[in-house]
């Protein structure tokens, strides 16, 4: 039987505080392609990992702005150019009435972009990932706190990285090898 390619290494940590400490040490020793898995978001983890703030807001904001304008113009276009019809003697371009629909269109599209944008940035759905090779990783959604380092990281060396994770308090250090 030929041993598969090592795609990363994973280690378990005791609790959220230990995970944060591990993240800080990984960050300081120059690792980039690592992630800290926890059943809930941990306060302060972004700084510990050296992560920047999510860019999602910069995507949703412009969409909201464009859509509220587009909704307003669309309403104006249908009632003045596409289908000019006098109703109750009101002017064709009754902009006072356009707020509710323009607002609803803005909220609808921005919410959609928030959800879809979040999934796209996270590259989800993705049903296969090296971390799932580990049997223990099931507990990452229950009460396990894990660090995973990907093999693509510049500093990654099977033995060294595993040793390093052990030295910073990681338990059950495991190489991620395709098991199928």
């Amino acid at each position: 039987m030929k041993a598969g390619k090592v795609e990363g290494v994973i280690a378990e940590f005791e609790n959220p505080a230990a995970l944060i400490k591990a993240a800080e040490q990984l960050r300081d020793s120059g690792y980039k392609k690592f992630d800290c898995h926890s059943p809930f978001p941990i306060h302060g983890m972004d700084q510990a990992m050296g992560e920047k703030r999510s860019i999602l807001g910069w995507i949703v904001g412009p969409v909201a702005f464009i859509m509220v304008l587009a909704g307003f113009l669309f309403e104006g276009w249908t009632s003045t150019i596409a289908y000019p019809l006098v109703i109750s003697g009101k002017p064709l371009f009754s902009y006072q009435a356009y707020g509710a629909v323009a607002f609803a269109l803005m909220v609808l599209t921005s919410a959609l972009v928030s959800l879809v944008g979040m999934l796209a940035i996270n590259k989800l759905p993705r049903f296969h990932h090296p971390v799932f090779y580990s049997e223990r990783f099931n507990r990452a959604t229950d009460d396990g706190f894990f660090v995973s380092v990907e093999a693509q990281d510049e500093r990654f060396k099977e033995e060294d990285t595993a040793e390093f994770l052990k030295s910073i308090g990681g338990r059950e250090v495991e190489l991620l090898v395709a098991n199928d």
Partner: protein
Amino acid sequence: MSVENTVAADTFTEPPLIKGNQTFASVTEIISSIVEKKPKKAWFVLFGLASSLVMILLGSIGFLVWEGIGVWGVNNPVGWGWAITNFVFWVGIGHAGTLISAVLYIFRQKWRTSINRFAEAMTIFAVICALIFPGVHVGRVWVAYYMFPIPNQMAIWPNFRSPLLWDIFAVGTYFSVSLMFWYTGLIPDLATLRDRAKTVLRKRVLGLFSLGWRGGNKQWKHYELAYLLLAGLSTPLVLSVHSVVSTDFATSIIPGWHSTIFPPYFVAGAIFSGFAMVMTLAIIARKIYNLEDIITLKHLERMNMVIMVTGMMVGYAYSMEFFIAWYSGNEYETFTFLNRAFGPYAWAYWIMISCNVLIPQLFWSKKIRTSIPLMFVISIFVNIGMWFERFVITVTSLANDFLPSSWDYFSPTFWDVSLLIGSFGLFFTLFLLFIRYLPMISITEIKGVLPQADPHYYENHA
């Protein structure tokens, strides 16, 4: 000289939100085991009951579409009967869910985590029930798509000046955004269920819907911002939806409807009725599934306070309407309000006042707002009262308008009643399916508010 005020520090330390000294694993176990075990007998009984009412709903809709809306009790002045009453009632019920999930999230009210998931589910199901009524009220349901701005062979477009069209957009957006918000919250919990799944089918289905969630911080980072954005978008949305619904009435010239107080008055009423419904459902679910440690008395008490406060806002709106009717000097307006309180529908008006204004005042007493049987009964009264509020607004104004010769009395028919009962059946059927198959409390968020979720916890307790 510096004085350390240790007394104040002790007084203001909050007791834990979640009781029973839970660990992360025990939270997972308590909540996920509900959907992994075979349901209890009570669930089957309730589901059987609720789904038979859905049959009544479907039958009634079928007959209504076949025969036309003449099967209802609507008559010449009262063109809007129970259909709009039910619509406004159900949309209102939904509001508590969004308030809890979005507004309380932005205000960082951590106690919301125990109730937000099923309150959001309730929102979605209530809005589904609400959408049925304007849907069937159009009479020719097969041309309902005319309401959407779709390019068509007749080259006509909807009239964007009409508040009824605003409604389509407001409620449609509300439904879609609530659904997305709910699903976003569900992703990590579905991953928890996926990782606990024993059978291949469960693994596959839950795996599909949890999208391969790994719980890495590089994902949480974007996830949390997306959640915050959705909360930020839902907050003005929840305030706008019932405001738009109220413009269905307020932009007309009918006495009793043509009033600027309507938008805030409707929003307060919506939150009031929604919280009452959350209360009714939470008390039952908590009892059946032994969730007393997670939905504690403290949570219920806080919800009761919200009910009391919004109940007083509604009471204020009722009295202000009366005051303005007199102060305006408009005789039609004055008549409409006197007629509401002392006319042919006085019975409905006083049911509304007793249920919405008087009964919630009992919550001033700590004994009553922490007594589960009493708060259950009061929440039912509020649900009834808020249905009557919409009935009073809709029917009394239409039945006795400007011209006495056109007045008429509205009485519901069998089909009015069967549609209302059927919509309750649909609501409970969907809700029962939800608690059977999905985690009814957010596992992730509950873990996040446990004391040991805070990294600083370990500095003091190491």
